[in-house]
């Protein structure tokens, strides 16, 4: 068992708010410099840059968790990750079905482009990816778990787009695999204030929109190997696998 550095919340240039420098190649290069072993690719309501990033990262020995940052109907941001290409594709279909037909306006929100390995633009996504899905948080959680995925409400303590700002408190029966808390929040204090009785593993991650953000916050995971199933075990403290944050 050894420790791996994981930053599970990174946007690419596909997210309208993601800097155009956030190409999969640049993200991998920066992750390498910052000695990250595991990165999560989590664009708003889209998984379309995950596979290219994973392909580039494999060459550098970096594991990519493929997923998205979902905006639920209540406008709660949640991270979702999937193990296989099949389940990732099914989730992409779910996102496309549930995303309302609100079009992106590039001058307001920014570009939503998918690029290939040579950095040619292969697609411009027309629907605005920031819009809340038709599906509420419980429905999204259920969908993620039906597909064997990992479900992590994002930056839960932030005053906007978080479970606390939108829903007032963490629903007592929420089946989250972990909670992401902001960089400067103390997990023990948060757990006590919210009366969570250590029900959840806490993660810290960068929520990077710019190259310089990558790795500014990360979590340490104790695993046999940096695989999806090992990470899942670490999130629920199974068989000696666990997560530690600063």
């Amino acid at each position, binding site marked *: 068992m050894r420790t791996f550095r994981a930053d599970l919340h990174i946007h690419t240039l596909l997210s309208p708010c993601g800097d155009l420098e956030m190409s999969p190649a640049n993200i991998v290069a920066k992750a390498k410099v910052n000695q990250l072993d595991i990165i999560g690719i989590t664009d708003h309501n889209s998984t379309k840059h995950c596979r290219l990033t994973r392909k580039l990262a494999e060459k550098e020995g970096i594991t990519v968790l493929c997923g998205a940052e979902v905006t639920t109907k209540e406008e709660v941001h949640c991270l979702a990750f999937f193990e296989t290409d099949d389940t990732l594709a099914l989730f992409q279909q779910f996102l496309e079905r549930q995303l309302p037909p609100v079009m992106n306006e590039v001058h307001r929100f920014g570009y939503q482009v998918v690029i290939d390995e040579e950095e040619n633009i292969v697609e411009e996504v027309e629907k605005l990816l920031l819009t809340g899905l038709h599906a*509420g948080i419980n429905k999204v959680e259920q969908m993620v778990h039906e597909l064997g995925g990992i479900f992590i409400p994002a930056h839960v303590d932030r005053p906007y787009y978080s479970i*606390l700002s939108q*829903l*007032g*408190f963490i*629903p007592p029966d929420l089946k989250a695999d972990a909670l992401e808390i902001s960089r400067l929040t103390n997990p023990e204090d948060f757990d006590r204030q919210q009366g969570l009785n250590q029900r959840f593993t806490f993660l810290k991650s960068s929520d990077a929109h710019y190259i310089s953000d990558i790795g500014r916050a990360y979590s340490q995971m104790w695993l046999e190997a940096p695989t999806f199933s090992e990470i899942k075990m670490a999130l629920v403290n199974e068989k000696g696998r666990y997560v530690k944050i600063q």
Partner: protein
Amino acid sequence: MKAFKVNEIIEALNLEVLSGEKGLDRIITGGYVCDLLSDVMGNSKEGQIWITLQTHKNVMAIASLRDLAAVVLINGFKPDADTAAQSEIGNIPILGTKAPAFEIAGRLHELING
């Protein structure tokens, strides 16, 4: 301000009772309009009618915590199944309207302050 019970405003505002019928004799002290549940938790007052588009079951937990008179769902929204169940248990009615928040809040304000 006139004292109204929940069942006295239903006809005037053309509201539909979606759940929690046993709570229709609750007394209304005013109204509150917001879709951020954390704000409602902090700022709403006992006896108010809460106008919102949120349908998650945390709505009923907050309504019960603040002892609100009823919840009005706007734009034709319906409560989630577990939200409706909580409304029955807590005897806090959920009422529905096709009208948007601005319109229903204006009419409620006129009725109870008029």
